């Protein structure tokens, strides 16, 4: 009897304290190093320090990334962190990463995007010889985050190192469950503008002018211009030819919402890194790489995308 084994390995690691964290992470890294695998660790800065100290001299052979910076937008983690590292080692037999995208400071606004990201990792790496260990802080994360980890990971490792298959594993179901209408915008909408092909530049000019009024400046204002251009151009080219852009500020962040009649049917849209020679496929990717947070609601009724940038 032969079975086809999925080469992608994606366990969640449940840890309650520093000892459990190190007991789960350090041997995982060392095993990779012993086998000659490229290893990267992308976790919050306070945990980076723990793993680095735990590895001692071996730390020099590991790539460390502060997930609170590199992965503050969950939609950026697959293209900008995980695949960026895995794809840069095409000749490796296996690539190994630790990725901790969910920490206790993640807001209610961020969380659905975090959970969807964890689910989409499974699609992004299907068929590839990659191992990604995702630590979950059972002492500080809420029950929903831990329950969702069973849905987004085929295997869960507990604090004692026991591996168990997750019967709840259903990444597509989770992506759909969090594909919900976005909460109503608060008062104080600064801009609501309907655009079509002829008024795309005006939609961008007006959005950028309002963003500048709200305090966005310098390179981030240029990044925002690119983001608005990509989202509104997508509406014109793929989303029914027209759309509405709205803009406001919320909890110290600029929020820009683009709504159109399009339907995003590709769950990995904007999460595949672009090859140098590739033409197209950089619109939503650019939005994910530049924004601090992206939330999406999509269906046959249309698509709403909200982009958040820290002010």
């Amino acid at each position: 009897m032969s079975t086809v084994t999925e080469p992608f390995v994606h366990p969640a690691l449940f840890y309650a304290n520093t000892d459990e964290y190190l007991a789960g992470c350090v041997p995982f890294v060392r095993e990779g190093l012993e086998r000659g695998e490229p290893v990267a660790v992308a976790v919050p800065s306070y945990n980076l320090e723990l793993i680095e100290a735990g590895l001692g001299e071996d730390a020099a052979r590991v790539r460390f990334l502060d997930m609170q910076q590199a992965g503050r937008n969950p939609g950026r983690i697959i293209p900008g962190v995980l695949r960026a590292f895995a794809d840069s080692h095409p000749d490796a037999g296996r690539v190994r990463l630790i990725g901790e995208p969910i920490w206790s400071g993640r807001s209610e606004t961020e969380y659905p995007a975090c959970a969807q990201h964890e689910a989409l990792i499974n699609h992004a790496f299907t068929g590839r010889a990659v191992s990604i260990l995702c630590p979950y802080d059972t002492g500080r994360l809420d029950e929903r985050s831990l329950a969702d980890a069973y849905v987004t990971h085929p295997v869960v490792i507990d604090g004692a190192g026991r591996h168990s298959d997750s019967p709840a594993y259903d990444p597509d179901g989770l992506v759909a469950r969090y594909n919900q209408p976005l909460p109503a915008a608060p008062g104080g909408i600064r801009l609501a503008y309907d655009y079509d092909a002829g008024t795309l530049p005006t939609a961008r000019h007006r959005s950028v002018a309002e963003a500048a009024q709200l305090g966005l400046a310098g390179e981030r204002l240029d990044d925002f211009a690119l983001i608005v251009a990509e989202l509104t151009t997508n509406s014109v080219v793929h989303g029914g030819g027209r759309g509405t852009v709205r803009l406001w500020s919320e909890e110290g962040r600029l929020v820009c919402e683009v709504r159109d009649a399009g339907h995003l049917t590709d769950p990995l849209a904007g999460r595949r890194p672009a090859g140098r020679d590739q033409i197209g496929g950089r619109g939503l990717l650019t939005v994910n790489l530049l924004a601090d947070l992206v939330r999406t609601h999509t269906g046959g009724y249309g698509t709403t995308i909200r982009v958040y940038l820290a002010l």
Partner: protein
Amino acid sequence: MQSPERTAAGAPAPASATAAPHLAVRPLPEGRGVTLAGEVGLATRAVWTDVLAEAVEGGRSAYVLELSEVAFVDVAGAEALAAAARRLETGRRIVLHDPPRTLSRVLEMYWPGLPGIEVPTP
């Protein structure tokens, strides 16, 4: 073959917040390249790709794009530029004078160090 003045939407509009999309092209002396004014986006893509085609097919070793009056280039515009630069034979290049930050940002994100593109420091 070079037309003296081309715009995507008639005469160049003033660069106000409600300007119609435009991208004006003026030749530089001796066929060294062109000066562009306006924005590169969906509505002006055809003008931009025509300029890039001329840069590639003209055969000059260095083709100058004077961009100080270009306020914005979108991702597809940067992509078209990178594709044009890749079509140049070794040693040939497109020289960008004073590109807008949006263009520099996207080139740096996706095509750092592309050999066919030169950005002289002013």
